[in-house]
């Protein structure tokens, strides 16, 4: 079940450098939402920008929903300018949730930058199902790290060493596994820039680790009617999978990751 509804903004705020959250309520959405799903939101009623923007659901609490986003372009700038009470035109929840079942003991949630978005809800869901949860979150520097004390077992890494490990996030995963945990039965869940997903995929392939990824790509409809969001498949009888409808969450082994267009050109 998915809904199209106009909700009222509860708040917006900047929680790290150029990292913003926006909060609103929808009991219908939170009731059916599952980890890794996203919402498709119209910035405002103007035709410029025209299309909805996809956002992973970052936090839920009862009927409260929080999204987290960077301000880059037209859409996100409009979200950041919203005030309490402003209307927000929301469609969702959309997409196939993360696969939570399977033979593993610990979920390692790997996020680069705004890839943190789906992790809190995923972590809670894994925890409730009895899995151990570790978060490994990387960013360029300390001010861009989203520090959230509700995050389970967080490990941080920054490119400039200003917080946590002085490394990229894939090296941080390696470091974590090699220290004490190399024999754990793990599943990795990753979300972040395509370059990070590429190198994490290689790392996991080398070690034969189970990796699920959550993709981002340009979308028009978000519901499978435009065919605008294809990614090539390695297996299966279709050449392409539609990220909005069959994804955004995949087993990395199903995908030809190189077919993801480089972000923003």
């Amino acid at each position: 079940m998915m809904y199209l509804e106009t909700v009222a903004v509860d708040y917006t705020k900047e929680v790290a450098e150029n990292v913003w959250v926006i909060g609103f309520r929808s009991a219908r959405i939170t009731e059916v939402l599952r980890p890794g799903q996203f919402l498709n939101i119209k910035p405002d009623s103007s035709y410029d920008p025209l299309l909805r923007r996809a956002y992973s659901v970052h936090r839920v609490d009862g009927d409260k929903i929080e999204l987290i986003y960077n301000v880059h372009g037209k859409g996100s700038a409009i979200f950041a300018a919203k005030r309490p009470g402003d209307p927000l035109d929301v469609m969702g929840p959309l997409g196939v949730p993360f696969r939570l079942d399977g033979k593993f003991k610990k979920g390692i949630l790997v996020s680069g930058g705004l890839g943190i978005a789906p992790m809190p809800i995923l972590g809670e869901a894994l925890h409730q199902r009895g899995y151990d949860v570790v978060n490994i979150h990387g960013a360029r520097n300390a001010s861009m790290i989203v520090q959230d004390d509700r995050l389970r077992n967080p490990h941080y890494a920054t490119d400039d060493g200003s917080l946590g490990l002085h490394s990229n996030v894939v090296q941080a995963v390696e470091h974590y596994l090699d220290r004490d945990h190399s024999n754990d039965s793990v599943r990795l869940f990753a979300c972040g820039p395509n370059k990070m997903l590429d190198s994490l995929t290689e790392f996991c392939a080398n070690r034969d680790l189970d990796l699920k990824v959550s993709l981002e790509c340009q979308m028009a409809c978000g519901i499978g009617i435009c065919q605008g969001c294809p990614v090539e498949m390695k297996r299966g009888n279709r050449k392409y999978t539609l990220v909005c409808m069959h994804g955004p969450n995949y087993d990395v082994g199903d995908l030809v990751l190189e077919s993801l267009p480089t972000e923003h050109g």
Partner: protein
Amino acid sequence: MSISTEITIRNVTFKNPVLTASGTFGYGLESPDYVDVSQLGGVVTKSISRKPRDGNPPQRIAETPAGMLNSIGLANVGVDVFLNEKLPALRKVNATVIVNIAASSIEEYAYVLERCEEHEGIGGYEINVSCPNVKDGGLSFGTNCPAVAEMTRELRGRTEKLLAIKLTPNVTSIGEFAHVCEAEGADAVSCINTFVGMDIFVDSRRPKIATITGGFSGPAILPMALAKVYEVRKAVSIPIIGIGGITTAEDALKFLIVGASLVQVGTALFIDPGAGPTIAEGIVAYMERNGITSLTELIGSLDTSLQPSLIAAGWE
């Protein structure tokens, strides 16, 4: 006041004039639960080809001011899967189905149409001529008037069902194309398919979509689409299906008033998949407000008589 939004073309009666445009509503089956397909005038399917097509590689879409570019590449399940899986499901949801056909040769168009003729539940056909014409060197049919004429003649000979030809706007004189369609027996022309557009990233200096240029649609194109409908209205007397940038009932009314008998909603469905029924309701509300009881009073009722300002200015 009893208001009728019914409109009949050939032997198909559309319960209202609002259809979904090809390629923007899948096969009419993917839409969310809150969209009632039976409230639409009709569903035009994604372009169906002889064989299944994967479509173009990513990136396929880009947003532009009040519009978007696409190069989907006619990704579709092919006529067999369409007829065996999609059509029966569509019939169950009680939709008037127009099958949009894409092909690269007249034989291929004819093949797909004839396969469809074997099945029940199809209201008619819309022929997408914006595909490369393999026989004549890859240039699109849609910009070659004799090819469109021949294709229309061939298809007309093969079906008693509603036959609409979907014209491309990327020509000097769309009226000439509409004219040959009428002459060869088409029941209607669909105006218009997408305009050619492109966009690039200035940092990487690369095209935003993989095929470099693509189809341009959305609210931005409405004024041009309306001008094309106006041109075609002057050129032919068969019904016109107006398409291009329609998002609201007001937009749809513009096309009807200029001379379209039906309209199709495309890109707007990506923002609200339920836009079709909403627009149909808005048309009824307008008719009520203006004391108009039947669509025929509205269609082509554009008032181009001289405005006082023109008379004052000495125009006669």
